[in-house]
Each structure stands twice: as structure tokens, then as C-alpha cells.
């Protein structure tokens, strides 16, 4: 069984919702990411979404754009990100890791080579923002061959027809984008999200995670009422940005890890309440 599937089954048994933090790998420096991943798990993360930095992140708002830029100053590549995950797996064989990024770095590596390396590193799912299933004729089989879950987005503009198509190819979980817009948007309408999730639930038995616009324990808890997983990204990356310019990387990393852990703990408490 895939780690992601196992994770959701266990959560269901425990009557709990998944907390899924997103951070960009290598942000604000390559040293932080491994420690940050472990500390996020200690603070209540069930699944980790790790952003692969890309020069042209067209689906991301300013907060995650800057995260990519900071990571790219150190040249953090897809290969580097896989290396970090391999290290993470040395002491954590339980927490699922999902890569989130754009197609071109994967395209350049080659789908088969990527899938083989990602699987070897201990990746569980891959969410590539700019590849719809229509273009994924060779991408999806490459992931499946190595037991990686292809994770796809559904959005407020996705028709029921497309939902069916997408759910046919997706595994692991479905990621519902809560708002029309880029990451880090402010206005999230919980009632509207709940209504869309009802439609999605008619179509698929896969767990649904909701992201884009979850800012704090309160929105996390509200979304936790209607979805199986809550994805939080920009709110955490903001904390990276605020501390990125500390005197030393060591200083910055300590503060970032501490503040992100606090936010995740509060979200965990709210979700479990």
C-alpha cells in the first residue's frame, strides 16, 4: 500500500484530519530543509509537501515566488531536492512526502529517470501544477511504474465532466484549489468550498485536501470540517521570508523552524479539537 493511502486510512480510523504543510526545498538555504521536515512532523504534520524551486512559477503568488528565488540563489535543483528526501527517509520511513512543482525540471530529467530516482529517494506523490491529465499520456504511466501517486488539482472552474476525467487518473488524494487565483490568496469562502466538495465526493472516493488561502488555525479547523486534509503553504513560507535575513543562516534557520512549528502545533490542536 502506498504511504499516502496508508496515512489516510490510519487518520480515518483515528477520526482525524491530515495536516499538510508546504515549504519550498532549499528556502532560504539548503541546510534548513532536512531539519525543518523533521520538526514539522514533530509538530503534527501528517504529510509533507515539498516545493521544487522553479524559475517561472506562474501559479504562485508573491510569497512562494520569492521562496523559489531564494532557493535558486543556492541553485537548489530537482536532484538536490531528491537528495534531501533520501536523507529524510534515513530516520523517517512513515510520513508521506509529496513533491509540488512545475513540469520543466521533470521534463529535462526525463519522466522515467525522474520517477525511478524519486521512488528511490522515498517520494510518495507528485503534484505537477502545469500538467493536466490531457497532456500526461506518458507522465502518468512513468509515475505508476514506480508506485508514485500522481496528484492533480481541481479548481472552482473545473466542470463536473473534467472532475470525472481527472479523478480517473489521480491517486493518493485530490487537491482542491479553494479559490480562483494564485497561492497565498486571502479570501477563502468555506461555505463555497464545502459545496464544491460535495460534488467532488459524488465522483471520487479519494481523500480530498484543500489548499490556497488557509492562513491560521481557524481556517484550518473550518476546512477540516469538510475535507480530509488541510494544506497550508504561503502562511508558513511567510515566516521563512520574515526571518530569511537574519545575521547567519544558522540563526535564521533556528527561528524559522521554531515559528513554523508553533503555527503547525496550533493548527494541529484546532484540527483535533
Amino acid at each position, binding site marked *: 500500500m502506498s504511504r499516502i493511502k496508508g496515512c489516510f486510512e490510519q487518520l480515518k480510523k483515528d477520526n482525524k484530519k491530515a495536516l499538510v504543510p508546504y515549504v519550498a526545498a532549499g528556502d532560504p538555504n539548503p541546510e534548513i530543509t532536512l531539519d525543518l521536515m523533521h520538526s514539522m512532523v514533530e509538530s503534527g504534520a501528517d504529510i509533507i509537501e515539498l516545493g521544487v524551486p522553479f524559475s517561472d512559477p506562474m501559479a504562485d503568488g508573491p510569497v512562494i515566488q520569492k521562496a523559489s528565488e531564494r532557493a535558486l540563489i543556492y541553485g537548489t535543483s*530537482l536532484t538536490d531536492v531528491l537528495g534531501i528526501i533520501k536523507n529524510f527517509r534515513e530516520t523517517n520511513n512513515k510520513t508521506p512526502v509529496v513533491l509540488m512543482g512545475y513540469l520543466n525540471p521533470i521534463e529535462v530529467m526525463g519522466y522515467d529517470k525522474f520517477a525511478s530516482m524519486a521512488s528511490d529517494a522515498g517520494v510518495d506523490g507528485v503534484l505537477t501544477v502545469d500538467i493536466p491529465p490531457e*497532456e500526461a499520456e506518458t507522465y502518468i504511466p512513468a509515475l505508476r511504474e514506480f508506485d508514485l501517486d500522481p496528484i492533480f488539482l481541481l479548481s472552482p472552474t473545473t466542470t463536473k465532466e473534467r472532475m470525472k476525467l481527472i479523478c480517473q487518473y489521480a491517486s493518493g488524494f485530490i487537491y482542491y484549489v479553494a479559490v480562483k487565483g494564485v497561492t497565498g490568496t486571502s479570501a477563502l469562502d468555506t461555505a463555497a468550498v464545502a459545496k464544491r466538495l460535495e460534488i467532488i465526493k459524488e465522483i471520487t472516493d479519494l481523500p480530498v485536501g484543500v489548499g490556497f488561502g488557509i492562513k491560521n488555525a481557524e481556517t484550518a479547523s473550518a476546512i477540516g470540517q469538510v475535507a480530509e486534509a488541510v494544506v497550508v503553504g504561503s502562511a508558513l513560507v511567510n515566516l521563512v521570508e520574515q526571518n530569511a535575513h537574519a545575521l547567519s543562516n544558522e540563526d535564521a534557520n533556528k527561528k524559522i523552524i521554531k515559528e513554523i512549528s508553533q503555527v503547525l502545533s496550533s493548527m494541529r490542536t484546532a484540527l483535533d479539537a
Partner: protein
Amino acid sequence: MTTQTQDQSEKKLSDMPDENGHFGQYGGIFVPETLMEPLDELKKAYIHFFEDPDFIAELDSDLANYVGRPSPLYFAERWSRELGGAKIYLKREDLNHTGAHKVNNTVGQMLLAKRMGKTRIIAETGAGQHGVATATVAARLGLECIVYMGAEDIQRQALNVYRMKLLGAKVVSVESGSRTLKDALNEAMRDWVTNIDNTFYIIGTAAGPHPYPAMVRDFQAVIGREAKEQIMAHEGRLPDALVACIGGGSNAIGLFYPFIDDMDVSIYGVEAAGHGLETGDHAAPLCAGKPGVLHGNRTYLMEDRHGQIIPTHSVSAGLDYPGVGPEHSWLKDIGRANYVAVTDEEALKGFHDLTLTEGIMPALESSHAIAYVTKLAPTMDKDQIIIMNLSGRGDKDIHTVATIDGIEF
């Protein structure tokens, strides 16, 4: 519009793309999920209105009376004689309203936006030519217009920024990434994804997700259709070669497309070699890049070995883009078109050559095509014919040229 032929053997090159926007392995739709539905809506509108006689009549009327079409096909007699080879004809897109071919496309897309009931227009721009052409037609229809422009480019192209403002557009400075055209395109996509209900995104070149490459081509193909009729009138036969500069490639595909099934016509696309292909400091993805995925389509790109898009350089801001329209990538791979590159220095010489021999001051973009014609024409016979697309006029570049020549105003 492309139509499917029943018989595979009858399939023509001009039948591309397929219904999902593929030119062979290139093109397609590589966008976040939220844009899939708006792109489908756009595709349907484009297919519908291209077959609607009322729409075509309105478009033709605007092209004639507002843009000033047809543009002349001018025999550059003196320049041809000096080069001592083929007869060179210039397709005078520089004489269009706003001074370049860009307006053919913005007039067309704006009419589509109007028919689709969109009230807010967004665009990206590099040098500012497409931004100006968009702001111009938006002013005419009284639509809100927002133009995204890299902060670097805003500094380099202050005059065009002011022109857009005079036309009532809001110019938004893009501070992310390399702060140039590619980042402006990213930002426009982000705006579109956020405001899809009332917003129409006018992409300026034959790139981006389907249907943009095909749609922009179809709006620009008026260049090649006219040129074909005009050369038949002048010479009674088709040309031997076509030459056009390539950034995203919209002026080039506009000239090439109506000739694409005429296999005796050679096709040359001229990219910007900047400081030289060997220096890496250029904007020539077809000559020196690799296939990848950016801005919604698969195409040749300037990228590093990890798939990150790398900075480009050209003296001509309009060619300074790391990608290229997917149809060009396909034409390159199947060998139908030849893609070459000329340096900044060669283009500047082309600028001066044409100005001095013909009294026509070309845009620095078009000067790349000129520089290649000066190489190509002498290798051809005197009874052979070249049509070169003079895609824009050079007034906007006078400051750049003067600075390079060491002149201060």
C-alpha cells in the same frame, strides 16, 4: 482555421495543429487547472467566430480602415542591386497603425473579447510594442486595460510606457524573476487565473497554451496572404525565399503560414544571436536551445541542465525571450523551415544599411531579418525573389542605436 482531412495522405502542413493544439510533439496546453476551462471557452469562441461571416467582415473592415491594410509589398531595388543577387521585396508591416505587425493580432483578439462579453483586457509586453498595440485598441473600444511589463524593460522603454499611459492603460511593473518579458507573461497569467470571469488575456505572440499559438497565427496570417497576392501581381510567381525575424515568432509565422504548403518556397527564421551563440549571451532557443515546457506550451527553450529558464540577451527587446512559438519548433524539426541567428552587431549594420539605401528605418527586431538577407541574397540568382517581413519601424529604437553609436542627445 484548421480542418481535419479524411485521408491521411492528403494531410497538409497547414492543417496543424491538432484539436488539442499540438504541432507534432510541440504546443499543447500546460497550465494550472483553473485555466483549463477559460482556455476551452476561448477555443470554442475562436473556432466559432472564425467561421462567422459577420465577425470576419468586422475584422476585415478594421484591418482596412483602422490598421491601414493591405500593407505595401515594396521592391527594394537599390538595396537588391547593391547586394548583387536576388530581388528583395519588403512586406511593409512598419506602415501599420502603431508601427508594427502587432496590431493585426490585437485588433483581432479585441474583437473576440468584445464578442465574448469580456470587459477587462490584460496583456504582457517586453519592448512595449504589443502593450501599445493592445492599449490602442482598448482605448478605441473603451475597455479597461492593464499591461504587465518587467521592471527592467520599463526602465529601458520609457517612451512606450508613456505611450501606453497616454492611451489610458495601466502599466504594472513586474519585480519578480529576471524582471523582463517572461516574468511579465507569468504575472499576466496570474492576473488571468484570478480574474477569469471578466478578463480577456491578449497574448502578443504565437506562443502560450492552445489556442493562442494557432489563433495569433491566424490573425497574423493576413501578412502572408497579402504578400502572396501581391507577389503574384508584381512577378506572376511565388517567391524563392521568405525571411523574417523570430522572438516569439508571430510576424514570422504570419508571413510563413500561407506559403507553408508551397514546398518550393524556402523559409528562413532569424533569431537573435546577441553577443554570439558561442557566448551563451543570446536569445536563440531554436538555434541553441532544447525542447521544454514554459508558459503553457512545449517548445524550444533557453534553459540550464536542471530545467531552469536562463536569462537571454538581445539588443532588440522584442526578441529578448527564452521561448518561441511551438509551430516554429515543429517546422524546425520536420525541416520545413531553416532557423538561423545573427548577432547584435550584424543587426545594427542591417539597421544602418536599409536606412541609408532605401530611406526606411527598420525596428531592431526587423534588422535581424535584414542582416540575414544581406547574407542570403548574394548567394542567389538575379531572377530569384526574396520576400522579407519588415515587421516594424525603427523610431522606438533610435535612442538605443544612438547610445551604441556613442551619441548623446
